[in-house]
């Protein structure tokens, strides 16, 4: 049965009347055209669709829209529009993190989530931080290096 679900999307209040059991992933992509949210596996394994729900990184392929009712959702589009997000994007570009690119928006969200909680992560902590995001191209090393670059370039920004 359709319901009206209201939530905050990238800082803006939105609402939609639809089946609340639709996957948040489909609603973000189809209804709100957040195409940076990628579908890679449909079962919470690959992290390509990662978004922030109330500040926590989640995979919206596992989340029914209804669970976002009254909550706050931030997608890669929202993150990369911020200064912090841009630091990550630029570091990814300079550090050679990007190959086919399909996992990358999810990686950007993971990097943002990590650095927001841990401004100076170690190599191990970065590897843990992106361990829920599968990449088949890069072997991860240059993504890890790029996140280190984003941490150092951002400096105190990550502590705000």
């Amino acid at each position, binding site marked *: 049965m359709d319901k009206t679900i209201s939530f905050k999307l990238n800082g803006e209040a939105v609402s939609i009347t639809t089946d609340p059991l639709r996957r948040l992933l489909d609603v973000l992509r189809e209804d709100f055209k957040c195409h940076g949210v990628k579908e890679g596996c*449909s079962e919470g394994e690959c992290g390509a669709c990662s978004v922030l729900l109330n500040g926590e990184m989640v995979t919206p392929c596992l989340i029914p829209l209804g669970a976002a009712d009254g909550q706050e959702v931030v997608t890669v589009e929202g993150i990369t529009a911020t200064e912090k997000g841009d630091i990550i994007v630029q570091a990814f570009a300079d550090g*050679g*993190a990007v*190959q*086919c690119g399909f996992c990358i*928006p999810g990686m950007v969200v993971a990097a943002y989530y990590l650095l927001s909680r841990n401004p100076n992560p170690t190599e191990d902590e970065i590897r843990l931080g992106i361990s829920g995001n599968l990449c088949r191209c890069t*072997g991860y090393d240059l993504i890890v290096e790029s996140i280190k670059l984003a941490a150092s370039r951002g400096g105190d920004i990550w502590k705000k």
Partner: protein
Amino acid sequence: MVTEDISKAIRRIDAVSKSKGTIKYLSDYDLDDYLWGRLVRSSIPRGIIKKINLPDLPEGYFFVSAKDIPEGGKNYLHMIATDWRCFADGDVKYVGETIGILCGPDKTLLEDLYEEINIEYEEAEPAVSIDEGIACKGGAFINGNNIHCSLKLEVGENVDSVFARADKIIEETIETGFQEHVYLETNAAACKKVGDKYQILASAQCPFYIRKSIAPVLGIKPEDIVVQQTTTGGAFGGKEHFPDVLCGPLLLAAYVTGRGVKMIFDREEDIEFSVKRHPSKVMFKTALDKDGNIMAMDSKVYYNVGAYLASSFVVLQRGCFHVTGCYKFPSFRTEGFGVATNTFPSCAFRGFGAPQTLFAVETHMCHIAEKLGIDPLEYKSRYFIKQGDVTSTNGRVVERVMIPEMLNQVLDASDYKRKSREYKYGSGRGIGISFYNHGGAFTGNGESAIIKAKLRLHKYPDGRVEILCGQTEMGQGFHSIMPKIVSRVLEIPMEKVVFDDPNTDRVPDSGPTAASRSTMIVGYLAEKAANLMKPRYDKEEEFEVETNYEHPEGYPWDQASFQGYAYLGYGWGVCVVEVEVDPCTGEVTTRGIWSSHDCGHLIDELIVHGQTNGGILQGIGWASTEVLENVKGHFKQTSISDYIIPTSMDHPKQGVYYVENAYRWGPSGAKGMGELVFNGSGAAYIDAVSRAIGKRISAIPCPTERVMDYMLHGHDFKEEF
């Protein structure tokens, strides 16, 4: 103007748009006026289709199958061979074989209808493994013997006469399994008639392949189809021929319905019903003299081809050409067989047949060395091939082989010699080493006889230069390095060089984006074209230059006998892997990975670095966790929680090194490298694990439970084979 070394890293042109998620993959396109397509497939591995029971289809919904192929159309897809049917007709030969395509506007209703389809079969007994295929289980279904294709190579004295005087003969079988590509973007394609042509949008490596492959279905010319590649989220060979399997049915559906039709696989569908790396079985027979020196090596190479030949003979050829690895033996013979089975046809996957035989020969060499009590490194180094030496096809190695220099780099970085001495067999710690190569581009004279690559550069009045060729970007960075090559020659900023995703109506056919040929062959054409353009660039407003591939003289090849110069330039690699094995559980922890590669002069060190990291990890995945079993014709692992690829925590940061060895016929001296970097890490990893547990490992993948199995029941290195 002094320009810095071309190797110095630049920003990839697609890096920012991919990071922001603004670049569009096919699933991001607005194709609302297209119907959805859903492939209806065989659920059994072998049998006769007795009846297809369809639900009543509402208006606007269609079921399209072989019977809809118009007069003059052919029910096959042209993928080198022409045996792969676009639609199963009468019988089915593997699980997942396309029977029809269901189309309609509402995806939910379409799925409901799809679930109601019931197909009645008369089932036959399938052959699934290589052994079952050879044994013709259920009766032969190809050539009376289930051998799709075969070849034989011999070098030096006849091996049988060498065996007669050998001191010792070692026989060993090495096996490798299926591997799934797991490109992060699943397969997707769409087809619609626009004007008098069919327009295909596809996530694909080779737009020109698609056109040629599917045109026969409607009995039209390839030129009647326009293929536009869309941003491709990884491919690794899995989108070389396989998009044809989507596009053939889509073309017929567009013809029948008069509408655009689109298809996007979900992950389960993509793993269950797509091509894989060929499983292999290599049976060695090696003759040793009284000092343990190799006198002759004989091998039989079996690849599980699946139900259709398609491109597999070429895969098998490359496998056989690489079975001598980086070594030269006094006498050598190999026979290769492509075995027909009732599994999803195997196809291209990074390395294209070379990784299987390279893994086999590396592992076999280790086992001989360990049996003789010699460090594998020392034993292998006795046989390193050098410039001018005879190859497995009686050609010669054209270039300088820099294995000694590469070896020094990885030995220093890994401390191999000390560790190899100190880590006792079975101690739980192990270090392994492998040597490998990869012949760049198409075999022999294929580039000149078959591909005939062509490239154009177009200069516009505003100074921009467009690169026109069929080469695709699929993540490897080609659409960044080409503008780099061209802008370097023309001495203009990179931003002035345009290189869009290819459209077959706009660009000349420069051959497939495959075989590690793009930089080496097409990059060289771009460099030559830029050199032709340069003297005219400032003088003329708008013009085009074109270059065509020319094969260097003096390196003959006979495709009928597979004799001569198979490859003009090889990439070379050395890899060392160090591991620890958990004595309680058999879990392997990788402690270090070091590699050195010769891929000529690097066009962009960061792009090459990224390719190296990814290839090495994919190779270790293949050897370790990537188990893909086929049970009675069905793949057992059908999701990425079951099919286990490495995460960021599985392996540590890699030590990556290169040697400088400019290639004569490559742009700025570059050679192919995309496949090379896959070819050897699996063998180094298995060498390390097997030393750590003190047991011979002769089959991959080798996940935790199989490591435990070897710990409990494996053979010690000193035992007889």
